C-alpha cells in the first residue's frame, strides 16, 4: 500500500512539480493508494483536477484508491464539497455553487457537455457575467476549447480529461486546469519524426517549442492544422492572462511579457494546461467586422 501525502498546492511552478512527484510515486499497475491530506494546507483547482485524474489513472491500471477524507482541513473539505470532487469519489456530498468551478471528468470529446460546462459553470458565474460581454465570453470559450481539442485529438489518454477551475473576484481572474494522462506532447512529436533516429533524443522543451509554432501539428490527416495553440497563445497575451503547460519534462509559460519553454527535472507522462484569463473587457476591441478585400 502506498500512502500519498498530498502537499499544499497553489499554482506556482513548484506546485506543479509537487503534483508530478505524486504521479511518479504511483506510476505502476495494481497499486493500492491512500490519499492523505494531513500535510495539505491549501489545494487549488489545478491540484483538484490533477488528483482526480491521478485517482482515475490508478483505477484504470487495476489499482485501488482510498481517500482519507478525515485528514482534510475544513476549508479544503468545504471547497472539495462545493466543486463536486467529494461526490465524484463516492463521498455523500452534493456539490453546490460558489467560487469554485466544478471538478469535471470527460471520457471523450462531448462537445455539448463541455461547452455547457464552460458556459454555465466556468464563465457562467454571475460575477464573471457582470464583467464581460457575451462576445468576449464566447471568444474565451472558443480559445479554451482549443485546449480540450488538443487533449482529445492528440492526448490518447486512457481515462480522458479532467478539469477544474476557480474564480478570483479580487483579481478579476478566471482560472481553469485541463489535464490528460495520455502520452504527452513530446512523445507525439518524437513519433511524428520517427523516420529519423535523432528524434528520440529531442528534448521535451524542443518538442514543446515546435508544437507551439503556427502550422506545426502531429496530425497526419490531410487537413491543415496547428493553429490552435498559436491562437490560444495570442489570446492569452492580449488578455494579459497566463498559460502554463507541462508535458513530460517540458514546461511552457506564456503571458503578456514571457514566451518561454524549458526543461525541468520532474517527469509527467500526460499534459497539464493551466490557464488564467482576466475578466477585463478593455483589452478587446470587437468590431462588427465587414470584411473587405480577398479572403483567400
Amino acid at each position, binding site marked *: 500500500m502506498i500512502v500519498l501525502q498530498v502537499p499544499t498546492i497553489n499554482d506556482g511552478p513548484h506546485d506543479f512539480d509537487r503534483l508530478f512527484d505524486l504521479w511518479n510515486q504511483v506510476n505502476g499497475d495494481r497499486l493500492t493508494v491512500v490519499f492523505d491530506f494531513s500535510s495539505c494546507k491549501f489545494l487549488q483547482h489545478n491540484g483538484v483536477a490533477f488528483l482526480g485524474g491521478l485517482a482515475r489513472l490508478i483505477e484504470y491500471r487495476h489499482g485501488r484508491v482510498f481517500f482519507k477524507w478525515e485528514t482534510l482541513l475544513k476549508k479544503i473539505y468545504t471547497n472539495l464539497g462545493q466543486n463536486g470532487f467529494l461526490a465524484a469519489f463516492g463521498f455523500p456530498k452534493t456539490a453546490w455553487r460558489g467560487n469554485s468551478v466544478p471538478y469535471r471528468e470527460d471520457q471523450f470529446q462531448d462537445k455539448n457537455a463541455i461547452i455547457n460546462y464552460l458556459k454555465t459553470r466556468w464563465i457562467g458565474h454571475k460575477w464573471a457575467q457582470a464583467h464581460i460581454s457575451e462576445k468576449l465570453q464566447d471568444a474565451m470559450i472558443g480559445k479554451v476549447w*482549443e485546449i480540450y481539442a488538443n487533449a482529445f485529438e492528440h492526448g490518447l489518454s486512457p481515462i480522458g480529461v479532467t478539469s477544474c477551475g476557480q474564480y478570483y473576484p479580487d483579481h478579476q481572474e478566471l482560472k481553469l486546469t485541463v489535464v490528460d494522462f495520455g502520452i504527452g506532447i513530446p512523445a507525439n512529436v518524437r513519433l511524428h519524426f520517427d523516420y*529519423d533516429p535523432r528524434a528520440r533524443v529531442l528534448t521535451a522543451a524542443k518538442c514543446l517549442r515546435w508544437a507551439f509554432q503556427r502550422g506545426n501539428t502531429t496530425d497526419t490527416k490531410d487537413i491543415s492544422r*496547428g493553429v490552435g495553440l498559436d491562437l490560444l497563445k495570442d489570446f492569452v497575451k492580449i488578455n494579459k492572462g497566463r498559460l502554463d503547460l507541462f508535458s513530460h519534462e517540458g514546461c511552457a509559460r506564456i503571458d503578456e511579457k514571457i514566451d518561454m519553454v524549458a526543461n525541468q527535472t520532474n517527469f509527467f507522462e500526460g499534459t497539464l494546461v493551466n490557464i488564467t484569463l482576466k475578466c477585463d473587457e478593455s483589452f478587446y476591441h470587437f468590431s462588427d467586422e465587414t470584411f473587405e478585400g480577398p*479572403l*483567400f
Partner: protein
Amino acid sequence: MKKIIIHDMIGENCITIDDGQQAYDAIYPELIAGKPVEVDFDRVKIFASPFFNSAIGRLLKDIEPEALNRLLVINNLHSDGMMVLKRVIENSKQYYSDETSRKTLEEILLEQSEDQ
C-alpha cells in the same frame, strides 16, 4: 446561388472537425462544380480552429485561392470568428502550397538555444 445557413446545420457552436466536415460536405461539391456558394454564419457564437480547418481551410487543397475569392461568399461572421478563419486560411495556404513548409527535424535540431 446556394445559401448554406451554418446555424441550421450545426448550431451555435462551430468548434469540431466533425462540425467542419458537415459544412465542407455542403460547400465543396458546389465550388468544385464552379458554382458560387454563400455561407451564412448568422447566430453562430463560438468558433474554434478545428471547425475552420475542416470546413474552409481544406478547400485550398483542390481549389485555387482566386476561385475561392470569386465563388465563396462568407456572411455574418463575427469578428472573433473572422480572426480565427483568417489564421486558418493563412496556415492552409502555406500547408497546401508547399509540403516542405512544415518545419523539419533538421531545423529543430539546429535550434540549439532553448529558453531558460
